[in-house]
């Protein structure tokens, strides 16, 4: 049996029909063809699939599409402005080379935005602690941590 789902993704109203067991990440990638959100582990550990639901970072591999009916979903594709201007966290990842292969990056950036929301002027210890649900196998985290600290300071200053 298929269930009707309606939600907002990146500011746009979308709808579809899914099985109850369809994960949000599969709805985003396979139904909406927004493939910027990655599936790393599919076991709630790596954070590659991190998106925001009603403004809060969640792992989209561990929430059903039917659980986000009527909610506001933000993926990596919706972060930059329409004219291509990067979000401060994206800009900081570029500035500080916060990536190598790029697979974990969408999740890192989405979690980074959530960290900046909750921790203005986040220090290194806070950022490292907050990143415990996001795994990177290339960078050793150094550039990622620097990027989020920098973005956190800049976003706090812009408030």
């Amino acid at each position, binding site marked *: 049996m298929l269930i009707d789902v309606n939600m907002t993704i990146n500011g746009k109203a979308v709808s579809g029909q899914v099985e109850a*067991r369809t994960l949000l990440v599969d709805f985003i990638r396979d139904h909406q063809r927004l493939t910027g959100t990655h599936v790393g582990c599919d076991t709630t550990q790596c954070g590659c699939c991190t998106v925001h639901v009603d403004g809060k970072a969640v792992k989209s591999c561990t929430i059903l599409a039917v659980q986000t009916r009527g909610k506001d979903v933000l993926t990596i594709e919706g972060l930059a402005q329409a004219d291509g201007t990067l979000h401060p966290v994206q800009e900081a990842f570029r500035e500080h080379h916060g990536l190598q292969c790029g697979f974990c990056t969408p999740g890192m950036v989405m979690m980074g935005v959530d960290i900046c929301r909750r921790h203005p002027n986040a220090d290194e210890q806070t950022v490292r602690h907050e990143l415990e649900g*996001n795994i990177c196998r290339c960078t050793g985290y150094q550039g990622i941590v620097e990027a989020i600290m920098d973005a956190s300071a800049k976003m706090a200053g812009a408030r």
Partner: protein
Amino acid sequence: MENFGYHTPASVADAAKILVANEDAKLMAGGMTLLPTLKQRLAAPSDLIDLAGIAEMKGISRDGDEIVIGAMTPHADVHESALVREAIPGLAALAGQIGDPAVRHRGTIGGSISNADPASDYPAGLVGHGATVVTNKRKIAADDFFTGLFDTALEPGEIVTTVRFPVPLWSTYQKLRHPASGYAVVGVLVAQTKAGVRVAVTGAGPSVFRIAAMETALSQDFSAKAIEGITVSADDMNNDMHASAAYRAHVVTVLAKRAVASR
């Protein structure tokens, strides 16, 4: 995972009705344990009853000398709550040590305690503070709620609706966190309450437990020195790839001393 019927009741009574009518139905709170379990096909319920739409199970309030937390309140909300931070900072800190930020945005207190994972943090939080679990049928003292490994006093058709925490004089939670999973290898909550000192341990054994000898010693002399000679038997501890039973038994006393010393 296998497919299932999906229900979104708007009241606890409706949820209970669906639960009773479908023998193989499961309640879903935040789904942080349930969905991974279904994905691994370790369970295949006929129906999922999503409790997210039940307003009466959400929110945090103060009722006299108790902090009342709705079962569907996520860990992040407990961690960030000004009410909890002011009245029971040790509980706010405990909630902030569960899983990772994304998990804390979804996982709930009601789901966590109903699952009763031996390595979860809230059992120590509830038993350590002498909390009361309120269900759609009755009130259960935390001491009687956790009955064993992944086992609780909940009966078929019974749903946790709120948890009531008496405001302690002081409390803290000390945890040896597994570095990969975030679960408690051992977690110790020490509370000074109007009813006396309470010491509750999670992660170490098959279920949360109190250490009466430490509670007695601390009632007479609230110092780390007073409990340095008090140990738990390794025979009763978990023994797995993460830590041996002897190690866990040792860490229980270490963390209890650390908790008391932080006063």
